[in-house]
């Protein structure tokens, strides 16, 4: 069995990004920066109705606008619109201004249809069907273990709560989009994607091209968080425009487009009943949950499924449980994978219920967790975290904080059972007689430092420095790699780079007779290669990576009971991720997960108007992200477990944050806010200072 070195110079240490200079100088070229020879600007016309029957679309007036070179339909002259913002047509022209004029010129004949925008309304039998002939809300199938009714009778304490989470929108800083050039030789797409292979396959499938005719390049991309795996309607439209205009087309979504049509995290409405014995042992759990995945729910003929299910009961061992879940279809953009799908809402619901139960039992909520969490790693993490955070010293009974500004603390746990390496990952390295070495992997760097991970591992195993390693990623012409998602990237590429390095050293030995080509022998060995460079192909190997990953987080908040403002004073994340590859970029990723979780806890929510079916906040002035002044001191404890090999961290880092913050707020004010985001209005309503809000 292969194993990672134990004495290391780079692995588990701090290495600055090898593409840092490109990113701080503006030299890094993102999909939205590509200026292919003769490129045109592309834009999409979107539906202004949440539901409508379109009977005619006239593109002629658009084509008459000066500078417009192509106009194409998204689906056809006739189409059914199912959400506000759905793609209808697209234009390409010599300037953004020409495209704006052309979109206004397109004539559409349409008949608005009945629609439904809210989960609660969509569940009613009288609601308009989002997918005609298919129920918006198919009967949930219960999942049952043990005897729930009998177990509740044995409980010393039982709580019932209603916990809800909003639709959250990915909003990467670079919107989705591509520059596409479609010529007789094939199609090249410079794509802002987290999956070059899946975009290639998607474009080839939609445009009826061979996979070999499609090349996808992603040198740099501006964030994805789960939304950017597919070719998308915008990718296909850009390709069609390029074909018609006979020129490359850059079609990037506007911020509005991004908020309407290209994915989100499904909402959840969790009715939870949970009970425990007097010593805190959980005995019974019952939950009924529904949420909306927009038009992504209910469309599969029989209805159901649809991406709104969450893993309940979360984390804890409960012998008797019954869970009923269902997805509700509404006229809104479809849900997509979003950082740790299902887990942040499940964590929020379950961990809120845990704290509510702890109150009823008169127990410290941390003790209740230690009593019921079966995972030994999290047990250790809670203990480490509690010590560093000063849990014992800081913990007060809920609502006992004095004064106008009340303080509170809370904690929550995370699990990410998926992750692990993608067995199909491949890569190659070319070693030249001058000692230079270039790695090529068909993976992409979503911002987690994938390039740097490759350089760190190669430098360690070859006895070089990371700066001596050239890394090329983001091209489907390279050996295939995984999508950047699900905490799988690092565990996929690390063993692959290990394999390449092992084979490179073997081949150098065979070819040059130098027994160990590493370090000080490297250049001498390479000199003896001969005239042509050698190319070594490698693939993922077993035994060097694993899953799952977990972690726990602690939050300290201040709540102003006069304004309802919540200020997060401190976050502590304790996370395990197997063998640490690059401590520096790992810390960045955990910070990022926590800050995204803060947004989920306090600020973010897609707001639909139920009367018009319109998304009311499809932009950054009304869809609020955490800003630098909102971000508290963040401390991180990394639990290094080299014996587990490489484990991803992207997902677990964002899972428990909202639950920990919500529990801290409840601890501060003595009242549970069961609905995210925890806005000042909800706080004031919970304190009886204003009438309750409609939510």
């Amino acid at each position, binding site marked *: 069995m292969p194993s990672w070195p134990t004495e290391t110079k780079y692995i*588990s240490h701090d290495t*600055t*990004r090898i593409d*840092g*200079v490109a990113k*701080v*100088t*503006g*030299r890094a070229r*993102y999909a*939205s*920066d590509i*200026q292919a020879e003769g490129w045109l600007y592309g834009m999409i016309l979107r539906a*202004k109705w949440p539901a409508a029957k379109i009977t005619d679309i006239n593109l002629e*007036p658009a084509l008459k606008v000066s500078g417009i070179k192509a106009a194409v339909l998204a689906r056809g002259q006739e189409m059914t619109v199912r959400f506000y913002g759905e793609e209808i047509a697209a234009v390409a022209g010599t*300037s953004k*201004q020409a495209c704006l*004029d052309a979109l*206004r*010129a*397109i*004539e559409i*004949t349409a008949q608005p249809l009945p629609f439904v925008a809210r989960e609660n309304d969509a569940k009613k039998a009288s609601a308009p069907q989002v997918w005609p002939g298919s129920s918006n809300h198919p009967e949930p199938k219960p999942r049952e273990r043990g005897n729930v009714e009998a177990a509740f009778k044995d409980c010393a304490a039982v709580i019932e709560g209603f916990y809800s989470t909003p639709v959250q929108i990915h*909003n*990467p*800083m*670079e919107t989705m989009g591509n520059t596409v050039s479609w010529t007789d030789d094939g199609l090249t797409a410079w794509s802002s994607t987290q999956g070059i292979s899946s975009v290639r396959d998607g474009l080839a499938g939609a445009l009826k091209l061979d996979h070999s005719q499609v090349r996808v390049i992603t040198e*740099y*991309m*501006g964030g994805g*968080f789960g939304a950017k795996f597919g070719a998308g309607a915008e990718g296909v439209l850009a390709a069609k425009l390029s074909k018609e205009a006979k020129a490359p087309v850059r079609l990037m979504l506007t*911020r509005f487009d991004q908020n309407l049509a290209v994915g989100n995290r499904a909402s959840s409405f969790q009715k939870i009943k949970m009970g425990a014995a007097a010593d805190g042992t959980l005995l019974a759990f019952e939950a009924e949950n529904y949420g909306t995945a927009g038009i992504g729910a209910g469309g599969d003929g029989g209805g159901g499924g649809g991406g709104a299910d969450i893993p309940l009961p979360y984390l804890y061992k409960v012998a008797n449980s019954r869970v009923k879940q269902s997805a509700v279809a509404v006229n809104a953009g479809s849900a997509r994978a979003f950082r740790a799908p299902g887990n942040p809402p499940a964590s929020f619901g379950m961990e809120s219920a845990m704290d509510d139960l702890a109150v009823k039992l008169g127990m410290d909520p941390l003790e209740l967790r230690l009593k019921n969490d079966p995972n030994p790693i999290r047990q250790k993490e809670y203990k*480490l975290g509690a010590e560093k955070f000063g849990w014992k010293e800081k913990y007060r009974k809920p609502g006992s904080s004095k004064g106008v500004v009340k303080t509170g603390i809370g904690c929550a746990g995370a699990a990410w059972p998926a992750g692990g390496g993608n067995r199909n990952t491949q890569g190659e390295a070319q070693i030249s007689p001058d000692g230079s070495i270039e790695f090529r992997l068909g993976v992409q760097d979503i*911002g987690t430092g994938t390039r740097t991970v490759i350089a760190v591992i190669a430098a360690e195993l070859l006895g070089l420095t990371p700066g001596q390693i050239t890394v090329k990623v983001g091209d489907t012409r390279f050996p295939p790699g995984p999508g950047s998602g699900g905490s799988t990237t690092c565990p996929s590429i690390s063993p692959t780079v290990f394999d390449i390095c092992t084979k490179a050293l073997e081949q150098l030995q065979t070819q040059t007779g130098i027994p160990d080509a590493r370090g000080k022998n490297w250049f001498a060995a390479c000199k003896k290669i001969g005239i042509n460079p050698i190319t070594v192909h490698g693939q993922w190997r077993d035994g060097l990576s694993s899953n799952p990953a977990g972690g726990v987080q602690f939050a300290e908040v201040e709540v102003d009971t006069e304004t309802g403002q919540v200020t997060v004073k401190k976050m502590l994340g304790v996370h395990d991720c197997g063998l640490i590859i690059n*401590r520096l*970029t790992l*810390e*960045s990723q955990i*910070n*990022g*997960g*926590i800050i995204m979780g803060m947004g989920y806890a306090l600020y973010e929510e897609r707001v639909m108007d139920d009367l018009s079916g319109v998304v009311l906040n499809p*932009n*950054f*002035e009304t869809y609020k*992200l*955490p*800003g*630098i002044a909102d*971000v508290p*001191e*963040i*401390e*991180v*404890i*990394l*639990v*290094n*477990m080299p*014996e587990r090999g490489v484990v991803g961290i992207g997902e677990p880092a964002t899972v428990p944050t909202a639950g920990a913050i919500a529990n801290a707020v409840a601890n501060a004010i003595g009242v549970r806010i069961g609905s995210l985001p925890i806005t000042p209005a909800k706080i004031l309503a919970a304190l009886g200072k204003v009438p309750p809000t409609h939510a």
Partner: protein
Amino acid sequence: MKNSAPENPGAHSRRTFLKSLGTVAATAATAQVKTVAAELEKANAEKIIGPDAVPVTLNVNGEKIKLLLEPRVTLLDALRNYSSLTGAKEGCDRATCGACTVLFDDAPIYACQKLAIEAQGHAITTVEGLAKDGKLNKVQLAFIEKDALQCGYCTPGFVMSITALLKKNFHPTADEVKHACAGNLCRCGCHPHILQAALKAAGVEHASKTEVVTYA
């Protein structure tokens, strides 16, 4: 949705507005109207610009760039789409994300909110112009050292905002850094490292509090 032809952007210009006012103003005699008349005279003296493309000269990173642009083209659009300076990023095109931040005579501005024609005669600095003779400025260096970036798309904007801050305030406090970056968004969540990088660039070292604990 039957759309009428797009409105002539010139139809409601300040000039025509004042002109229509002027016919009324000619017979009135109040001081206020005199002011309007003076404005009208000034407006009439202005050259009518657009809606077609006009020559525009921008001074970017110390170099003159000559472009032919419709007056409605923004500085950001001019940089990114009419020249090859794509360092300033477009994240929203409506003054909310800060990815397009550039220096306008040393002051940080959103390039998406300035028309290119208005930017003429001013010194524009983009992220491409910060490194002199290939030497990164201290903010850029600190961003790399502190890993104040992940996907890197918001990075040019943050680097410009902090560079502008350090030009007028050599020793900012953490709160002053936060204030200077209030107009910049980051979705990867690099804020703690951005703050550390800004303070590092100002000479204040902030050690990471991250602890590594071995499980076994």
